[in-house]
């Protein structure tokens, strides 16, 4: 059951989510973004899927848009790696009709090696 904006508080930790970056998943991503093929997973593909799975944990209303993003890449991710994304709420801000949510995420591989971490801020439409 996805969490609604009102239920989230700074420090709230989402349950960890795991996903496997198979050759098919990576090929679909590379084709969609028109990227050069590599022997490993493009770091933004790792992040894109993390945000995709996060979107299933938060009830983002239709029309939510991305405001800012930070990433730090720390290790190569071979194709077919299973990664785990841990995310928590960094900040919530409501000013008049505008609502913002900032999430921190850490992604690690099967050996618990951190492969990247990031911070995403989204703007939610008026409810």
């Amino acid at each position: 059951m996805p969490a609604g904006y009102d239920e989230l508080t700074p420090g709230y930790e989402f349950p960890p989510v795991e996903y496997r970056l198979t050759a098919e998943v990576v090929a679909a991503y590379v084709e969609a973004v028109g990227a050069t093929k590599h022997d490993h997973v493009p770091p933004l593909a790792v992040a894109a899927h993390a945000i995709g799975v996060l979107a299933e944990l938060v009830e983002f209303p239709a029309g939510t848009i991305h405001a800012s993003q930070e990433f730090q890449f720390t290790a190569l991710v071979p194709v077919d790696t299973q990664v785990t994304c841990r995310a928590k709420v960094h900040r919530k801000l409501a000013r008049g009709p505008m609502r913002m949510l900032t999430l921190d995420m850490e992604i690690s591989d099967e050996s618990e090696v951190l492969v990247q971490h990031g911070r995403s801020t989204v703007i939610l439409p008026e409810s």
Partner: protein
Amino acid sequence: MSSPFYEGLVLPDLVRQVSQENINKYAEASGDYNPIHINQEFAASTPLGGTIAHGMLVLAYISEMFSNTFGEHWDTTGNLSIRFRSPARPKDTLTVSSKVESVSEDDDIVCITCALSCHNQDDEVVVSGEARVRIPECR
């Protein structure tokens, strides 16, 4: 000279055409089906007035530009900090540009900081920000 990178160096631009087809493919590849990206009728009813590309699709172009320049060093040490300034829309032509702002050395590692921007065919800034990467010193 221990690094081919120096302050003021302009990195090669990367140009990409945005299409609704690319956006739809990205939605399928990433699992992000927010209707603001893929549903024309819904998007037209919002203040944005039409569908827009996923921010992460635009970031993929930016990351590719740095990957083209710095290779695996980007994928293992890259640091990206950006703000989305205006939406990228279908039929936009996006140009990702970057210039080296500073180069510093720390032991055998060269730390490079670049200003970056992505703008559309009307010269509107879509994304602005900064990228940092660490590469081994050339000897």
